[in-house]
């Protein structure tokens, strides 16, 4: 058996190589975001395709009104998490915790908005998944987005808990930024969902 070649290092004419590959966390989350975007694309296409094809009521125009306040809450949470990561990068952990708490609160308010809208639709307007195509597509698309908000909130709460135990330090700013990218994605998807459901769909 010949001697393994890895006994000698493969250093050919030694050049100083400035070798800085990108961070795997960022690349990983971008790939995940691409996959999630594909899933949302299919749901959005289905929603657009089925607009106006319901055979019975209630129709979107009768029961939907744009949730402007909750939308503002969710979109501002993108801003607050941006401030959170910037402060953590600067090493100010206490103000990081404050911004993070504000982000979680804004996300929770948005979820409350979705929940109350669903409650009204189901118990007042009698719209469920089985009622008509509008119900099927509406609850699927908004529900898929709401599910992503919940996942994001769970992750943010874990970071919050770790911060309270003093485990989040400046050197982990990169990881929190990766999570913030996911949160930005959830917010960006809401812009699409809002446009499709409350603007085009009505």
């Amino acid at each position, binding site marked *: *058996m010949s001697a393994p070649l890895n006994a000698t290092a*493969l250093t050919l*004419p030694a050049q100083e190589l400035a070798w800085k590959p990108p961070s*795997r966390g960022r690349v990983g989350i971008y*790939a995940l975001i691409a996959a999630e975007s594909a899933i949302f694309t*299919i*749901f959005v296409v289905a929603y657009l395709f089925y607009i106006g094809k319901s055979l019975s009521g209630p129709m979107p125009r009768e029961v939907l009104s744009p949730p402007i306040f909750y939308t503002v809450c969710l979109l501002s949470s993108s801003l607050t998490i941006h401030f959170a990561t910037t402060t953590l990068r600067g090493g100010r952990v206490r103000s990081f915790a404050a911004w993070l708490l504000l982000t979680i609160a804004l996300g929770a308010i948005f979820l409350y908005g979705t929940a109350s809208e669903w409650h009204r639709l189901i118990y007042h307007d009698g719209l469920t998944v*089985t009622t008509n*195509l509008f119900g099927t597509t509406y609850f699927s698309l908004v529900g898929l987005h709401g599910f992503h908000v919940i996942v994001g909130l769970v992750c943010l709460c874990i970071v919050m808990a770790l911060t309270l135990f003093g485990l989040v330090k400046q050197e982990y700013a990169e990881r929190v930024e990766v999570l913030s990218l996911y949160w930005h994605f959830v917010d960006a998807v809401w812009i699409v969902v809002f446009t499709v459901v409350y603007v085009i769909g009505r």
Partner: protein
Amino acid sequence: MSTESIPWPSATAGSRSFVDTLHEWVTTVDHKRLGLLYIAYALVFLLIGGIEAIVIRIQLIRPHNDFVSPQVFNRMFTMHGTTMIFFVVMPVLFGFANYLIPLMVGARDMAFPRLNAFSFWMTAFGGLVLYFSLIGANGLYGAGNAPDVGWFAYAPLTSQTFSLGHSTDFWTLALLVSGFGSVGTAINIIATIVCLRCPGMTLAKMPLFAWLNLVMAGLVILAVSPLTAAQIMLLVDRYLGGHFFDTQAGGSAVIWMHFFWIFGHPEVYVLVLPAFAFASEIIPVFSRKPIFGYPVMVGATVAIGFISMSVWAHHMFTVGMGAAANTFFVISTMAIAVPTGIKIFNWLATMWGGKLEFKTAMLFCVAFLFQFLVAGLTGVMLSAAPFNWRLGSSFFVVAPFHYVIVGAILFTLFGAFYYWFPKMSGKMYSETVGKLHFWLFFIGFHLTFDFMHIPGLLGMPRRIYTYEPGRGWDTWNLIVTIGVFFQAAGILVFLVNLLWSYYRGKPAGSDPWDAWTLEWSTNSPPPAYNFALIPTVESRRPLWDLKHPDDPDWKYE
């Protein structure tokens, strides 16, 4: 990067109990062990899917046969298709990617080792969920057990009305679960290739294997996710009473076709790009020449990736989509033959003037070149909508499809098994038995799939349970079925060769083929940490540079 090696139990195998070994394999996050697990898992399902194919072919061997009941026949072709695509070819390709990519790019593991283990076990559970349907899916009404809706599960068939019991639910859940695994692996492959390349390995100096798998992973992300979305919709329909695919409530059956084929066609390229990757590594080594036209190969790969996202509806010409859509999909489908043709010419140019060594791996790759050419040509025939209207859903469609999956993908896959077996096991396989495998499988393949075109042209539909005598289909079906037994014999010879060589083979050494990529620079099998020192590379063939310091490649690239 170099500090991320994982702890590994010292190599005192043999003295450890079976439970310890099992525990080690189940809890492993090492990319090589996970790669081997993927491969072993896929080989088990290859046997299962192969037996299903044999049942289908015995049923069709002569007219008015009743080897199995019509219900069982439907289950067999559904399970055969689903098993082979999702639980044989994808896992085995992921296995090779997992095993080889970190070694080829000079890394110590994948980017996310625990995600890697998670992905494998999701895929594994997906296969188990699918086959659990045999005992779990009966449900009420004496409904059937295994799924019987065909591997693309067209819409009205999958509704509660037509698919009683839980067989379709098991099909949906199996694909959903294994889809999560596939996307996880794809993310891992991308992050590994982008972030963990060793110093000096710029994108233009990566082995083509890494390039092709990078594009493959991108396609998995963009193609498998729509399938996941469609499966969620199907679950909403079946469990929550939704109407996505319910035509009674205004839903559309055609939109399921679109969603499925938006996954389904790029999926073909997900499967074939790794096959190209194997060929792009094996052909140069056994031609003793560097790959011809590396930048063009990369460009063609990326072009295939892009175009493959816009050809899905050529599976739906018979639906009647209208002239504009038909024209678009005819043109895009024909366009994809261009980058693919460029690749074939580049492989031929690599062999041209080379010192060819017809080892078993090379034999499989040369057969691949010609078979893939035929598959591509029949593909162009079927891409013409008027031709397709005649032959859609006939046996003629089944033949070119298997020409790609078996003639191109499985052939290069066997080549890859023979090429990297010495690296993975540390032992040499038997070249004589390998060639016996090649010839048996080669003859069987051509008996089956060459002659399968003809009953299709004579009007035999696909998926029929049996047929009338005297339509000119009888002899062809007999020949097709005989070929299957040659293929089965070839696969048994292959498995015997693997097992025998693993226990009795001669030691292979670290570099039996005098090859050029980094995986051959470390021991066979590689240690847990892969490389004692993270290598630095200067060209596409780092080992050539090391072996020929007087004439290194980087002078010319």
